[in-house]
């Protein structure tokens, strides 16, 4: 059951379980994987941004990709979606090998993504943004474009679909405004709604909650849960552990380019490797200061880290009470 009222208490929906085969270790095989990636490495000069031996994303489930800043989550997204090319490695989506395939072809197969830095097309209206998302448009061919009678009917259908989605995302009142006039959170919503216009099978969301005000967060979570109910697979990057616990069926933890842990959210939160992942990559920051044992000056990164640690601590301490 979904709640559209942003102020209502989060409604816990049933988690999908039994996604993996055998013991839970990093890179564990899934019962029904939609993405299978092997030996993916991407270096920038001397820095190895991604180095994933094996990872599988379960179909028709919500998988969260977590890890500290710079862990390589966005780079992995870019690689999987064809926006970047790995030094080596191969991966399949829905049985199609994607290595070397261009981004637009990957999207054409039904694997769409959003960006960490929102890409609303500012000088297109909200409705135009939405319509752009639809696939296989007759009028997108330059020769057929000059004969409106060829594409009018399809255009009307696309518009109808766009309006339904805009209503659902509470953007319908803005449909004729330029997307540039939307707030940061509304742009995140628009980007997600636009991605859904292409009727994807896998939706990859890079930090969908970042910058979204708390009133919108709950409805965004509900939208993500709805995607699963509609048969889609979701892979999302998120820093807020509450959100991850609330909606993810499976969590994959990255640190320094590698998958260091994975499993159902509750199990993963207990994992020492996860805590290390969050702390280990910040060796330049005195952990005593971060955790509040010692007085000292914190730079902005350390302040963020301290907040993350606090979240993790709370999660671990309260894991019996929350989520019930």
């Amino acid at each position, binding site marked *: 059951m979904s709640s559209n009222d942003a102020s209502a208490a989060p409604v816990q929906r049933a988690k999908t379980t039994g996604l993996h085969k055998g013991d839970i270790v990093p890179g564990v095989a899934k019962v029904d994987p939609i993405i299978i990636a092997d030996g993916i490495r991407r270096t920038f000069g001397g820095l190895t941004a991604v180095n994933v031996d094996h990872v599988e994303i379960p179909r028709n489930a919500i998988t969260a990709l977590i890890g500290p800043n710079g862990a390589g989550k966005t780079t992995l997204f870019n690689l999987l979606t064809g926006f970047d090319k790995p030094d080596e490695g191969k991966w399949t989506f829905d049985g199609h090998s994607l290595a070397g395939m261009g981004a637009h072809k990957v999207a054409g197969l039904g694997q769409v993504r959003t*960006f960490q830095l929102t*890409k609303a097309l500012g000088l297109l209206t909200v409705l135009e943004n939405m*319509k752009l998302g639809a696939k296989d448009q007759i009028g997108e061919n330059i020769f057929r474009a000059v004969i409106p009678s060829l594409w009018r009917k399809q255009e009307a259908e696309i518009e109808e679909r766009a309006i339904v989605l805009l209503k659902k995302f509470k953007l319908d009142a803005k449909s004729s405004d330029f997307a540039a006039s939307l707030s940061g959170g509304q742009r995140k919503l628009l980007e997600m709604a636009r*991605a859904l216009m292409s009727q994807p099978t896998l939706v990859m969301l890079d930090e969908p909650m970042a910058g979204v005000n708390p009133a919108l967060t709950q409805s965004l979570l509900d939208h993500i849960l709805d995607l699963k109910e509609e048969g889609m697979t979701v892979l999302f990057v998120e820093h807020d552990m509450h959100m991850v616990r609330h909606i993810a069926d499976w969590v994959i933890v990255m640190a320094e380019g590698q998958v260091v842990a994975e499993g159902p959210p509750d199990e993963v939160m207990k994992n020492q490797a996860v805590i290390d992942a969050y702390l280990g990559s910040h060796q330049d920051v005195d952990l005593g200061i971060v955790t509040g044992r010692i007085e000292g000056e914190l730079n902005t990164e350390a302040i963020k880290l301290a907040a993350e640690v606090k979240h993790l601590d709370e999660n671990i301490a309260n894991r019996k009470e929350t989520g019930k």
Partner: protein
Amino acid sequence: MDILQILSNTGSSLIAPATIGYALAALGLAMHFGFTGLLNMGMAAFMAIGAYGYAISILTFGFPWWGGMLVGVGGSLVFALILGIPTLRLRGDYLAIVTIAAAEVVRLLFLTTTFDKYTGSADGLSGYHESFRAFNPIPDGTYGFGPWEYNANGWWVRIFGIAILALAAFILWAVMRSPWGRVIKGIREDEDAVRALGKNVFSYKLQSLMLGGVFGAMGGIIYALPASVNPGVYVTSLTFFVYTALLLGGAATIFGPIIGSVIFWGVQTLLSNLLPAMVNVGLLPFMTTTQSQTVRFILVGVALMLLVIYRPQGILGNKKELTFVK
């Protein structure tokens, strides 16, 4: 000072073939820059290829006028492919550098004495009018009134040019209101977002370069149609002048480029007549008539700067739909 003559020359420039040629090239840049966001700084080369393609195929190969035009347009399509395939993967500012260089290469190829037999090198080409004039349906004589009095050939060139301009404006309007145009505008805003939605961005950019290039080639042909092909015309400053006309009218509009070209040529003609006349009657004691012609181009530069700073959307553009913000 003959005020009447100055006004008459200015009035006449409003529908001159050069004005129509600029308007066509500016429509091409509206496609490239205004709608797709491609900073093509090589429009002069598309115009040169149109003009030389037209003149050479008539003079050297004996083509009829329409065959010459097809060659000019075909040449611009080939040039768009050669230019676009390696460069359209580059980001905006790199594209500007590469297109400026490519346009210089094209200009120097037409200018070099190596191909003098075909291109006339520094002398350019002329005397290719017979075939086009033979098709003139207007009976001999002089028509019109006031500043707009031309003979049959003068009207034939202008009517033909305006018809081509109207056709180009219609095509641009038709494609830009379609889903194709939506993808194009999306690419201007953020090509990665469009790619993420499954559109082949490279192919769309190439199509835009080709369509705008054809407009530019037709502009070059109309510009050269009444007189001659002169290699001194197709220099980089021609591209800047066409950009001035485009930005004056509004980069992301259909009628802006046309109105911008008309105003650009109107003001240019007015100044080129008015300034020397003012010098001669002693109103501008600090300069000579020759200097006053240079001042004209300085004023164009200043106008372009003021325009970009204070009215980037142009005369017809939507204030919200700026192309320089970001």
